[in-house]
């Protein structure tokens, strides 16, 4: 579940209560709200430091075992037992503290089983706070990698850019659904061509999507991302653009757009990746524009991703493959660059996160007299959007080159552009410089004949007599809707105004015939006109982050193209219960002699057994003096074999507990260890 989905389910007063937890003291002092603190890396890091050992161990163990996936209560407790030195009661305290601070939540499944989860958008801040990954920058001679044929593999165009190309292609073609409820095959082919994804890089992840027999993973990803950003919606049997959000999205700086898309995609992938989510966390902890060794990343990920934390040879191979799956995907989406780095005699495969322009220009186009248009790397998307409709893209390397051709101009006219508008756009996007006269001549030539005639689907208001036509003209609110009179008895009217006209005529006492002829139904909406450069300035003046978050915070899942993994929002959130639900700790402690936890003593074997049984019941640990050394032991079961008994549990020696079976002769002294902060 994501933060926004969670916020919808929680009563707002709970947000404030979460912030009262001592864990959030630093964030609260800064005036942060819970929903902001949860996704703020600094606030999360500070909160991690303020957590009790129980809370921190619990969260670490949970994230370590399950990544960003939800965990059933019994599996979670088992993981805590296996991965921490805490006794059961301590685990419960830890979990309770996390719930009180609004870090951990639970939903109740149909049969009452509890599923614990942290909001998926807060996974990465917590992952990076609790498992800091210290990758060290590499320096040396950097060479590009090569593919199987020996050709250099360069950087890919960023996903945001390719999404723009696909969207432009979609809106210039048939975006209506077929009888099967999918886009036409030709349209899908155009989208795939615009996206140019290596499908295998996406399919390496366990993602599922609707109509997978028709859509490639890339197309599903594109449709989902566009739906999530709110500028593409399913309506009237087709996909329709929403111009206002589209305009805002196009106005975003590249850096923000790509970051947002990365975060959006991670929301899907993290929930479907289990422990491998740590790989994403480790990679994302690397700084931008610096080279890091893939081998180093692998070593750092191995203990987090491997089952027992050891780095064995065969496991390394698996981890390498798992790591490369993420790296390949980030590279494919144009966010990461791969290379080989030579440092002395050593060679390393390295990666770096790319940075993108944080400020965009809307006036940097270079229009050449031969019709070529050079777009600098910091050219705003609004400008690229328009270029997609008036020109043909020639290259996909920076700077991207376009060329206006007779065909591209004819297509632009089809999309409702005019010569004046094209000239105005090119001038404006070219920094106000006059267009080269050959370009003016080309535009003049190519716009001279095309689209001088057009077909328009309008409606005809037919009156059965001249008298009725005059009646219609005399209705003051109706008259402006009668676009043109044809002959004595008919009027051309806008199809979209039919229902208004109908009600006006009805009110005037002449209800029109119910059946109507052809209308504009089925006509494609025109390619949206994006104003340049207004949006960028608007955003800078206000708060572009706020706009960006609207696209990528993802309250909804983008028109249900990609299926949400581990979906929880259909289940009942147990947060309400949480507020009132006290943690039942140490049941029956009142009947236990206080000496049993106050001091170490050497007890008789039968008392030792009794003490151990009590510890199992209370879910606490015991402290044992073994060969003069004090050790903690979390007993789980007391076994009786004839006259002999033994206790199995976890011996805490070092960081990781060790499963042990102890007989009473193995320790000298003992006492119960109650969780810290428990007073009796």
């Amino acid at each position, binding site marked *: 579940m994501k933060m926004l989905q969670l916020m919808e389910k929680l009563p707002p007063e709970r947000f404030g209560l979460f912030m009262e937890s001592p864990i959030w003291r630093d964030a609260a002092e800064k005036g942060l709200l819970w929903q902001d603190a949860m996704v703020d890396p600094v606030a999360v890091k500070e909160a991690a430091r303020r957590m009790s050992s129980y809370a921190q161990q619990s969260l670490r163990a949970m994230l370590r075992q399950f990544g960003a996936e939800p965990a059933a209560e019994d599996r979670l407790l088992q993981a805590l037992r296996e991965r921490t030195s805490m006794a059961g009661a301590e685990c419960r305290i830890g979990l309770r503290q996390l719930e009180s601070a609004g870090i951990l939540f639970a939903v109740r499944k149909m049969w009452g089983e509890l599923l614990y989860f942290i909001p998926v958008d807060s996974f990465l801040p917590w992952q990076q706070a609790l498992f800091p990954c210290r990758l060290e920058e590499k320096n040396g001679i950097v060479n590009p990698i090569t593919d199987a044929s020996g050709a250099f593999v360069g950087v890919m165009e960023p996903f945001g850019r390719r999404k723009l190309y696909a969207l432009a292609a979609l809106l210039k073609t048939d975006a209506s659904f077929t009888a099967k409820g999918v886009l036409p095959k030709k349209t899908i082919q155009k989208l795939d061509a615009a996206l140019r994804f290596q499908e295998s890089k996406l399919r390496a992840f366990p993602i599922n999507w609707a109509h997978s027999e028709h859509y490639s993973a890339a197309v599903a990803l594109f449709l989902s991302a566009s739906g999530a950003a709110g500028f593409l919606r399913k309506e009237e049997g087709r996909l329709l653009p929403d111009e206002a959000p589209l305009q805002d999205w196009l106005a975003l700086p590249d850096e923000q757009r790509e970051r947002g898309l990365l975060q959006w995609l991670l929301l899907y992938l993290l929930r479907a990746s289990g422990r491998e989510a740590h790989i994403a966390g480790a990679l994302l902890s690397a700084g931008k524009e610096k080279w890091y060794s893939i081998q180093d990343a692998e070593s750092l990920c191995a203990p987090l991703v491997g089952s027992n934390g050891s780095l064995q040879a065969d496991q390394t191979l698996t981890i390498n493959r798992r790591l490369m799956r993420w790296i390949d995907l980030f590279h494919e989406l144009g966010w990461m660059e791969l290379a080989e780095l030579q440092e002395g005699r050593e060679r390393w495969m390295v990666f770096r996160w790319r940075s993108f322009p944080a400020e965009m220009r809307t006036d940097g186009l270079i229009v050449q007299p031969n019709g070529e248009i050079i777009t600098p790397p910091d050219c705003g998307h609004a400008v690229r959007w328009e270029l997609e409709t008036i020109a043909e893209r020639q290259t996909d*390397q920076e700077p991207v080159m376009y060329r206006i051709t007779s065909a591209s101009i004819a297509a632009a006219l089809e999309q409702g552009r005019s010569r004046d508008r094209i000239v105005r756009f090119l001038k404006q996007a070219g920094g106000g410089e006059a267009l080269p006269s050959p370009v003016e001549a080309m535009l003049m030539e190519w716009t001279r004949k095309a689209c001088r005639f057009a077909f328009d689907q309008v409606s005809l208001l037919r009156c059965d007599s001249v008298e009725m036509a005059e009646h219609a003209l005399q209705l003051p609110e109706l008259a402006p809707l009668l676009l043109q009179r044809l002959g004595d008895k008919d009027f051309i009217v806008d199809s979209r105004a039919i229902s208004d006209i109908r009600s006006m005529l009805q009110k005037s006492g002449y209800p029109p015939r119910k059946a109507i002829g052809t209308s504009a139904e089925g006509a494609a909406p025109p390619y949206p006109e994006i104003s340049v450069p207004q949006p960028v300035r608007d955003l800078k003046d206000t708060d572009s982050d706020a706009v960006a978050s609207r696209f990528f915070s993802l309250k909804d899942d983008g028109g249900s193209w990609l299926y949400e993994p581990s979906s929880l929002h259909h289940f009942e959130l147990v947060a309400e219960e949480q507020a009132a639900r006290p943690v039942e700790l140490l049941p029956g402690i009142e009947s236990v002699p206080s000496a049993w936890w106050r001091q170490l003593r050497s007890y008789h074997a039968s008392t030792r057994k009794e003490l151990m049984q009590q510890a199992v019941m209370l879910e606490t640990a015991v402290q044992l003096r073994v060969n003069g050394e004090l050790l903690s032991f979390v007993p789980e079961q007391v076994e009786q074999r004839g006259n002999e008994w033994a206790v199995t549990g976890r011996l805490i020696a070092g960081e990781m507990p060790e499963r042990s079976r102890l007989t009473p002769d193995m320790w000298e002294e003992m006492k119960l260890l109650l969780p810290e902060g428990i007073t009796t």
Partner: protein
Amino acid sequence: MNPDGTMIVQADLTVLLDEKHPASTEAREQLLAFAEATKRAGSMHTYRITPMTLWQALGAGWSGEDVIAFLKKNARYSLPLQAEASVRIWSSRYGKLRLAAEGDALLLCGDPDTLQSIQDKDFIRGWVVSIRTESEWEIRPDCRGSLKLELARLGYPVMDHAGYHAGEALQVQLREQTRSGAVFSLRDYQKQAVEQFTKDGTAQGGSGVVVLPCGTGKTIVGVAALASIGAATLILTSSRTSAQQWRDELLDKTTLSEAEVGLYSGRSKEVKPVTIATYQLLTYRKSKLDDFKHMGLFNERDWGLIIYDEVHLLPAPVFRMTATIQATRRLGLTATLVREDGCAEDVYSLIGPKQYDMHWKRAEEGSYIASVSCAEIRVPLPASHEHTYTSASARAKLRIAAENPNKLPVVRHLLQKHKGKPALVIGQYLKQLKEAASELDAPLLTGETPHEERLRLYDAFRSGIHPVLVVSKVANLAIDLPDAALAIQLSGSFGSRQEEAQRVGRLLRPKPGSNEAWFYTLVTEGTKETEFALKRQMFMLEQGYGYTQLEAPAEDENEFAKEAISG
């Protein structure tokens, strides 16, 4: 981002040089050492760095790291990794392999690792006579060209130091006074080009390409190279007229006699110490199954030098033939190495490296070529023709537009405006040209005009007896009209970009006085002709020639011509 960067470097080593940048001149001079200009449209000119252009720079003393440092310093955006790596890889291969001669034996010598890496290539195995040592292989001498070509394609340049055979000696010198009486000497850049080519007769010289803009005297460079080497020479040109022109230049500017210079043509197949032939004739055969019967010309005499004029037009069979005559000195001459078939790299492998390249801008700055102003004038169709035009078939429409009678008054205006300047009126349709010639009282030159008559008309034109010539498509060929300062295109081919380029090229030779020339193309407003005119102009735009758009004036108006000139 480096806002002071003069250029944008792309991953594939395409370089866009910002000509508006104040430091672009300096950057261009250096860039040309290892890159080749491909387009000169607008403010961003396009260059390309290829293995060949880079290797040539390395041969001239650059290092790969110098090139990378230069690109990094001047790049506006960061240098793509692939670009940097390509330069490193290509330069690391330079000089690793070389061809040497040992008596009659041809040796491929060099780095053992490199030799080992090419050993398993099928084509190599067939050419190796023996592997003498791990760093020295003996190669079949007849495979010298093919070996260089294939290894260059694989990314391994071979430095050919195997030298040349001398060929049949020829006593020839440049004249200080031409046969027609004018003082003659080589221009500095022509002298440099010849020196670069011959390299004092060492094995490092003797083959290669000289790139000079149209109108800067490429023929003279060829003539001087011939005189410098002093050996029997085969000259291959792109047309018969051009062959004639070569003959005239040789006789005019060298001590060669008519008996020593032969034209190998359909009519007379003279094989003399200096023989001039056309590519068309060499590649002529009756059918695809027949041999090229004239290709034997390469072996009919012991040539010491072969000159390939307009080397960018070199046809494939001549390419193949050239691969087999690598022991003969070879000079390629061209204005551009951009080949439609993308085989520029092969030219370098088989003819030789680029030895000299002068940028068009430098030529204009040095007044080695004239400054040409181009203008398109839109001429309306007479009202009486409009209906005929609308109802005509597509093909007939083009002809109606081309023969628009309103064009003639405009021609008259232009001739009046540029009175005294030698002018050509060029057209596509004979009927129109005849009318124009009659109206303008100017001689008409067509493909049917006998050769002798044509030469007579040229002379009359040069001497000013006829300041205006009306010419048909023949003007498209390589005729030499040195003092034409004005060309008016009444009608052109539908979209042949070469045609327009050649017509403008006629005007490029330096002019006395202001060194200016004018090219006007007349197109009929509102017809298909404007569309075709646009296509023709595209090539010129990419070569750096902008067109001014002008409306046709009223009959008694002359002012527009002034605009064209200033524009």
